[in-house]
């Protein structure tokens, strides 16, 4: 697993502003060229990137292998979807609500799950996520297993029309950048230090006087809230939410993105999402069995480059990489 204590992904301080500027420019360019298909494809990739980054928070930085993260994404999506269906289309209510409800579920699930360790923790988070999946499936009023269609996107007022692909793209970009900035500040703060410490050795961290369980729980809730945000964006992007979004195989997909992009790095989830979704699209052109090939690639990556692709490119100043 990646062991960077500082969370510098791109070494140069000007790297991020340049990237963001490029992203803004790219969006505008695509709109101007009439390539709105690619614009919405990019939006989708960034939304998954945000979801994967939120997982990286608990998994990569926290060292806690949570296998039910898709549940929080789905809960966020359903919250916004249900609100819109019930006549509350305001994004100013929907988005915070999505994050709040996801955070609540994360608090409940985390409170029980974090009392366990290792293999138990993984399976319990998995099982609880499945529970949420079955819940979503059985609530016929909101589509049940057929999913929920929403007739309009979130309304933020001020003439912001999310039906416009470029406007939506900028919203996604904004959420992504803000979330990554928050993650960056978080991991460099006192709180972040404790999180990284308990990843290395939770017993020692406790022996210094930190209540490790509480830190883990707070981290879990923050990651859940961020996942909820990505879900709110996702239901807007697809105008649709379906219980399959919460299925544990979706949690697996998020984990795949994290490992492809770099465990425990700030934007690892984003790179992984871009890579995986591109791979899927490329393979899907040639064969309906694209999962077969993606599976082999993933297997190869896990066996040979355990820190993910970002880990391959990252140079440490001194010190030996952990195995």
């Amino acid at each position, binding site marked *: *697993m990646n062991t960077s204590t500082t969370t510098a992904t791109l070494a140069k301080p000007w790297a991020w502003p340049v990237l963001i500027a490029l992203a803004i420019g790219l969006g505008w360019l695509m709109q101007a060229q009439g390539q709105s298909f690619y614009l919405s494809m990019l939006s989708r990739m960034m939304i998954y990137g945000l979801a994967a980054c939120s997982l990286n928070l608990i*998994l990569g930085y926290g060292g806690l*292998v949570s*296998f039910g993260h898709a549940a929080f994404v789905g809960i966020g999506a359903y919250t916004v979807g249900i609100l819109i269906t019930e006549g509350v289309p305001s994004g100013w209510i929907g988005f915070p609500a999505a994050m709040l409800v996801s955070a609540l579920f994360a608090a409940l699930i985390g409170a*029980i799950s974090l*009392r*366990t360790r*290792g*293999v*138990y923790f*993984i*399976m*319990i988070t*998995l*099982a*609880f996520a*499945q*529970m949420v999946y*079955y*819940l979503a*499936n*059985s*609530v*016929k*009023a909101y589509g049940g297993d057929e999913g929920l269609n929403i007739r309009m996107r979130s309304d933020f007022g001020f003439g912001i029309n999310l039906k416009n692909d470029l406007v939506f793209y900028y919203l996604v970009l904004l959420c992504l950048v803000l979330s990554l900035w928050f993650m960056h500040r978080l991991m460099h703060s006192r709180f972040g230090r404790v999180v990284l410490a308990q990843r290395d050795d939770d017993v020692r961290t406790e022996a210094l006087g930190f209540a490790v369980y509480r830190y883990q729980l707070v981290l879990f809730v923050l990651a859940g809230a961020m996942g909820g945000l990505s879900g709110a964006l996702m239901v807007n992007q697809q105008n649709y939410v379906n219980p399959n979004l919460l299925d*544990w*195989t979706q949690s*697996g997909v998020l*984990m*795949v993105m994290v*490992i492809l992009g770099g*465990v425990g790095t700030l934007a690892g989830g984003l790179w992984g999402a871009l890579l995986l979704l591109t791979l899927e699209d490329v393979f899907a052109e040639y064969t309906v*069995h694209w*999962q*077969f090939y*993606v*599976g*082999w690639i*993933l*297997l190869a990556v*896990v*066996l040979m480059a*355990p820190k993910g692709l970002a880990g391959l490119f990252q140079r440490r100043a001194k010190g030996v990489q952990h195995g």
Partner: protein
Amino acid sequence: MTWILFLEQSLNGLQFGLMLFLLASGLTLVFGIMDMINLAHGALYMVGAFLAAWLVNLTQSFLWGVLLAVPLTAVFGMVLESTLLRTLYRRDHMSQVLATFALILIINEAVRMIWGSDLALSAPAALSGPVELLPGLKYPSYRLVIIGVGLALALFLYLVVTQTRMGAWVRAGASNRDMAMAMGINIQRLFTMVFGLGAAMCAVAGAMLGPLLAVQVGMGESILILAFVVIVIGGIGSIWGAFVGSLLVGFVDTFGRTLLPHLFREIFPPQVAATAGPAAASIMVYLLMAVVLFIRPQGLFSRRA
């Protein structure tokens, strides 16, 4: 709820629980001895079901189809273990999760490429009728056979684990792997055999449940979660825990699905009952797990050192 219905549902719960046990026992041993998460365990169940369906069609005999599918699946499992899974034992849990997740993708698609998305498998004609167990209680004979097979295999496993030398090694390994290795037990070979046995049991479950639950790609994943719940409740590494857990989950799930909607319709207005009933039914098992974990985070019968 009449007596007849209660007995019928009890038998259903027993039947489901026993089949779950076939999956859970192999899984708990893998976790217990090798501390490895194997998500692909459900894929073995699926492969067993597909092989059975294919062979039954080939041989035109249910019995032969199942009897051949089991050792084939066992061999497949052992090959998988000795080539790929072995390299994962030393790795961290997340790597194991991802590698076996990748395996699921590969195996699912491979099955789809060979046989298509689903195969038909029906119970043998001789067992398609009901048996009258008690006056008024008619129960499908095929399900009775499943119960019989399940009990027989459970007994067989019990005898192997408690009476044979291999079983003693397994129990030693399950409670303390390093100690077992230090005592000179060839843990590599033991483990391949245990894995093969687990794969065989998965195959039996897959083949027997095929006629009831449909043989299709992805069938492994849904039952795998329940198997996880079982061993979390029962305690990792404990076969007895897997047995108790399986029966518990089997009964709670079966009764939950039949009783709760009834109950909700009695108590709540129809609007609420229509959604709340099935919703509650589907999450009963997970609530059970949450309760058990709250009281005993390591499971009911955990023997981990």
